[in-house]
């Protein structure tokens, strides 16, 4: 029964993603119906973009950085000044500089790490004009970069990578907006509030007054899931009954989390003109995702005998139970989404291990919209290079040789994960100003630190609940790490794309390294697992693994 439910969920997800990929292929290759193209053209003209001017990788990267920098400054300004701005019925004051920095970086990098509580520290204007806008454009940025990187691998020799402004506009206009509108309407129907009126004061059955926060939530929640943003309208995110009121809303949001990341695999196959290539990458991601889900499910449903019989329900909503919480936890950490419908801090140690691995490998198991796909291409480059030599040819992917320059750039991009998680985490584990964030003792405390830094570097945004994210040390350090995890990967990958597109495409022969069969799927999985494991095994041993062995010995933290 459980298995069937998971199977149906996954089948629906893949079906929708397959259809979406077909649509996205038309979006990004300008084969949309003429009226839509006219709308797009008019909009681009209005912005002064020249759609026909294609960019090389440097121009593309500069456009991405410039756009994101401006987005950051704007958001930072809104957050600081929100107290004096409109749409602030609850009279919330301006944000502190370090928190505003953290929040602005977080939303621009598609992380949506929330060191604040939305209902208490953000005005409606900040939510709508600040965060929701970035929810769209940060997702759009990731999608545009992914499309540009894909072009680098598949386009004819000497092509440019496309035009960032056009790709961004198309991502938002034809993919994110339409689906968000549908999803927002659906969520509103399910009971998610969408109002500009302030909080209501209600009298509870015990006669006490309580303030119930509300606001324009439905619109923001739709894009938070779809764009793998994850930043909730309310502090407790999708565990809040206003963010996620019903089983139906839970299902819709679960699907929305993975929809675009899965679609990117199939889009890749379509753009490469060889759908097997996309299916192979999808298969590798799916196997890793399902393996992780299986572990989480098994541990959560079995529960902790030390606490009581039955599933581990600590920190979970009764409405969703262990299964839907497990599915959500696996999806949200794999997809770099970061929204939660249960408290990850309270999951079993090895469930936490899976979530950590999902993030620490760089959010490549489906990953963020666009980001997951260009992230996995990094592993593809490394896998092809490592094993490709073993067939006796210079390693090549899709007919293009992988040489010194690509390897250098891939290694450079790859370094950002250990740098963010290990170096960032090591400092956080020693500096007293940072240690105050840790809630729990023993290995679980270390897991909290690792989770925070993995989440920030992977641009995920979820956290182990007890973690004190608002300390100035953490807001600053995690902000820096988020930037590292985003741009230290985007820029080298665009450079790889720029270098690949200049190479001739050798025709496929029986001597070519096959990158579409089961063997390649296994190879790709092994590369992710082994490189990830080698990098993080020692710290994971001290964190969740030590916690688990201690639990088995009857000790808990």
């Amino acid at each position, binding site marked *: 029964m459980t298995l069937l439910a998971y199977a149906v969920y996954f089948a629906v997800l893949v079906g929708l993603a397959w259809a979406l990929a077909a649509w996205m292929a038309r979006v990004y290759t300008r084969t949309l119906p003429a009226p839509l193209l006219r709308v797009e053209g008019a909009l681009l003209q209005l912005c002064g973009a020249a759609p026909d001017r294609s960019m090389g990788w440097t121009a593309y990267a500069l456009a991405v950085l410039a756009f994101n920098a401006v987005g950051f400054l704007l958001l930072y300004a809104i957050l600081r000044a929100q107290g004096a701005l409109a749409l602030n019925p609850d009279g919330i004051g301006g944000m502190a500089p370090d928190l505003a920095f953290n929040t602005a970086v977080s939303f621009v990098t598609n992380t949506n790490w929330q060191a604040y509580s939305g209902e208490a520290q953000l005005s409606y204007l900040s939510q709508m004009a600040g965060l929701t806008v970035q929810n769209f454009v940060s997702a759009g940025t990731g999608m545009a970069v992914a499309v540009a990187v894909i072009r680098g691998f598949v386009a004819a020799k000497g092509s440019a990578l496309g035009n960032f402004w056009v790709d961004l506009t198309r991502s938002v206009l034809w993919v994110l907006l339409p689906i968000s509108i549908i999803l927002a309407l659906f969520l509103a129907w399910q009971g998610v509030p969408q109002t500009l009126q302030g909080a209501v004061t209600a009298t509870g059955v015990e006669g006490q007054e309580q303030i119930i926060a509300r606001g324009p939530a439905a619109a923001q929640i739709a894009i938070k899931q779809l764009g793998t943003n994850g930043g909730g309208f309310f502090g407790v995110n999708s565990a809040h009954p206003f963010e996620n009121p019903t089983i139906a809303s839970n299902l819709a949001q679960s699907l929305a989390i993975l929809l675009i990341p899965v679609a990117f695999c199939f889009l890749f196959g379509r753009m490469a003109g060889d759908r097997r290539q996309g299916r192979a990458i999808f298969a590798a991601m799916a196997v890793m995702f399902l393996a992780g889900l299986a572990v989480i499910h098994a541990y959560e449903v079995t529960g902790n005998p030390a606490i009581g019989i039955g599933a581990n329900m600590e920190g979970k909503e009764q409405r969703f139970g262990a299964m839907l919480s497990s599915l959500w936890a696996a999806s949200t950490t794999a997809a770099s989404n970061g929204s939660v419908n249960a408290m990850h801090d309270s999951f079993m140690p090895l469930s936490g291990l899976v979530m950590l691995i999902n993030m620490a490998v760089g959010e490549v198991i489906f990953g963020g919209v666009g980001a997951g796909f260009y992230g996995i291409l990094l592993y593809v480059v490394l896998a092809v290079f490592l094993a490709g030599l073993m*067939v*006796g*040819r210079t390693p090549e992917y899709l007919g293009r040789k992988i040489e010194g320059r690509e390897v*250098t750039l891939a290694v450079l991009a790859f370094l950002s994960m250990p740098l963010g998680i290990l170096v960032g985490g*090591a400092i956080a584990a020693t500096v007293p100003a940072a240690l105050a964030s840790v809630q729990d003792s023993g290995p679980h405390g270390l897991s909290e630190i690792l989770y925070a830094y993995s989440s920030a570097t992977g641009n995920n945004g979820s956290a182990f609940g007890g973690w004190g994210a608002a300390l100035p040390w953490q807001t600053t350090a995690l902000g820096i790490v988020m930037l590292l995890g985003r741009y230290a990967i985007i820029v080298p990958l665009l450079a790889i794309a720029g270098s690949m597109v200049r190479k001739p495409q050798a025709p496929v022969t029986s001597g070519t390294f096959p990158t579409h069969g089961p063997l390649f799927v296994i190879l790709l999985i092994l590369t992710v697992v082994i490189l990830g494991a080698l990098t993080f*095994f020692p710290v994971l041993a001290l964190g969740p693994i030590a916690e688990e062995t201690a639990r088995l010995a009857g000790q808990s933290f």
Partner: protein
Amino acid sequence: MSKHAKTADLSGLYPAAIRESFVKLKPRALWRNPVIFVTAVAAAMTTVLGLRDLLAGTTGAGTSLHVSAWLWLCVLFANFAEALAEGRGKARADTLRATKSETRVRLLSEPDESPGHAAEVLSTALRPGQYVHVAAGEIIPTDGEAVRGVASVNESAITGESAPVIRESGGDRSGVTGGTTIVSDWLVIRVTAEPGKSFLDRMIALVEGAERQKTPNEIALNILLVGLTLIFLFVVVTLPAFASYSGTTIPVIVLGALFVTLIPTTIGGLLSAIGIAGMDRLVKANVIAKSGRAVEAAGDVDTLLLDKTGTITFGNRMADALIPAPGVDMRRLAEAAALASLADETPEGKSIVDKARELLGSVPVMPEGAEAVAFTAQTRLSGLDLADGRGFRKGATDAVIRLTGQTPPQALGAQVDAIARSGGTPLLVAEGGRILGAVHLKDIVKPGVRERFAELRAMGIRTVMITGDNPLTAAAIAAEAGVDDFLAEATPEMKLDLIRREQAGGRLVAMCGDGSNDAPALAQADVGVAMNVGTPAAKEAANLIDLDSDPTKLIEVVLVGKQLLISRGALTTFSIANDVAKYFAILPAIFVAAYPGLGALNIMGLASPSSAILSAVIFNALILVALVPLALRGVRYRPSTAAALLRRNLLIYGLGGLIVPFVGIKAIDLTLVALNLA
């Protein structure tokens, strides 16, 4: 095969290589190999700390020094691998250098000047463009082109082939190489090589590895290895912080051990040995690569352009079948054909006699008083007139028809047409005025080439046959040899065009050639193999030179290139896969104090934390030296599809790399315990 092909016994090289391993400890020498350099730094650090502990009388100093000793051994083993590979080349270079002696030569001011008036100069002073006269018994002083004379030259010093070869001015056999000896007659040679830049110099530098530059793939791999080293540096450097958070400390010496076992020392230590050994395999095959890049490119080749003559066929038409006219006995035809060819010394004539012998069991000897009728361009017939008045002729169909005044019977005529259509050459055989039958002459495809091409196809390499034959003949041979395509009536321009077309389609092209008119195509091709007998222009344009002048060598070169890449990839995969087991050895050892539960990770059941760490370090050093022979020999390579190769190598080196260290570390641990060393 030549004398170079014999596998050298390596044991003679050990003393020098061991000495060299220590010489290579110089930081500047180590720096060239970042992974090993870092290992040496870690070894130095642990040694200092171990000595400090020893002086302070701290317990465990013995283990520390034991660990650092093995770290040093790891560095030495890497040096040894490189030294051994270089040593093998040096031995070969020394024999070459012996032929490169300074001699006095006769310098001519003009090519046709009489050698009697020549000025004597030192061979080392020769400049390109000068003319020298070399007579029988003298060593050709440097590379050049014969401009006058014909001589037989012993090139065994270079090629190992003792049969002398003819070198003459003009044509495609004018190239001469310094260090070879004129056996008979004389040559006037125009010098083409700068002093110290001759072929021999280049070859010496090459086999010594002195001019060895890292090839593109090697550079890329090195970057990856440095990247991995950096990642593990992050891992190890941050570990004390996480450990202290967890309430434990890790001794620096253990961190050093962990670091060295994690970084890819195995492939890092063997990488240069693999490269040198790859070049050495080429030299053994008597091919000189002008750059390592060309060898690597050979592994990537998609299209092979092969000359028909000499590569695919023997180069001479030979009798393939005899077809008797209706009513004529096969034996009678065979006898007549043999008699008509007895006096014919051409390969074709001999092949007819051979064919007749095959059919009859024996052939008649030249009858007494018989008179040979030689082939002329006018008659286009040859044969034999016996003393008894009988006359036997064989020749082109129209010539025999004219001679006999007969047309062949219809059945035979149809066969003759069929032979011509199939690309063969039909000859008619007549006795007196009667046509007895036909001989089918054809280009005989060398045995085994068809299978070879099938192998190449499986490897994804397309073969294109280049021939001057007409398209009909070419098509027939192409079909028989099993090449993928052919270029008939080929001219140098067509060759060049073909290469450009293939390259435009993203394919890498290899070809071989010898004539000057091949030079543009050789230069255009990604891998160009020039025959050593070829002209200097061809040799200059090519990036590989085959000393045996054997066009089939091209295939050999491709295989060597592939083997080189496979060896690197396989050992890299192996090296990285090894780390998993090392983690399972070392991590429980260093964390068990903080969290006793983590002892569960000690799945190998190693005796104690110190024996675990020591076993991992020892395994790391021993696996390096154990793989030296494999690095020098190259990973076994049987041509097959990329998918099959990947499956096989992933299984052996990937899965093997995961499993072997578990077994090895456990075995070392047991030994250490048995020896009471840990």
